[in-house]
């Protein structure tokens, strides 16, 4: 499987997904 960090599109997609996941953790788990 190709490393998504090899492309800018993959890097940005991962960054956005990580943002959503961390945001949900803050919203649902902490508050």
């Amino acid at each position, binding site marked *: 499987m190709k490393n998504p960090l*090899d492309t800018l599109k993959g890097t*940005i997609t*991962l*960054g956005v997904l*990580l943002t959503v996941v961390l*945001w949900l953790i*803050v*919203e649902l788990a*902490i*508050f």
Partner: protein
Amino acid sequence: MWLFIEFLARWLHILSGVMWIGLLYYFNFVQGPFMAEAAAAAKPEVTTKLLPRAMWWFRWAAMSTLVFGLILIYMLSTDSGSAYWSSPRGVSILFGGILGIIMWFNVWFIIWPNQKFIIAATKAAVAAGKPVEGLGTRPRIAFLASRTNTMLSIPMLFFMAASTHNPWHLIGG
């Protein structure tokens, strides 16, 4: 006076952060694709003359961002006590701060040591009139750490900005 110093620290934190992440995006969005297309003869010029300058500002901007960020953490803790760090605003800024510290670590302990080696090896090869050899996995490791930081910058800036500017008031809203 205290509030002015806090304001100054925040301003310098953001100013340093803009330079750091601006150069990070330059490396990933501009220099990387350029180097992939550049003629073989042009690459050592970039590595020996452009890269050392860009890396100097890049790593010291990262250091400056961290230092002023730590000063802000100290000042905010002194202002509001430990309760601040369990408030919605505090948690948001803390998430951003943790991501920023991971990125700072990547710059100083992964990207820069590898790039320093690559720059020195390229300079030696140019001086000897030989092709650059013996870099091993260093370019790949530096590349992946740089891409990791580009990825982490997205949630990092989200949490930094969301601490005061989230228009939906979802964090802790």
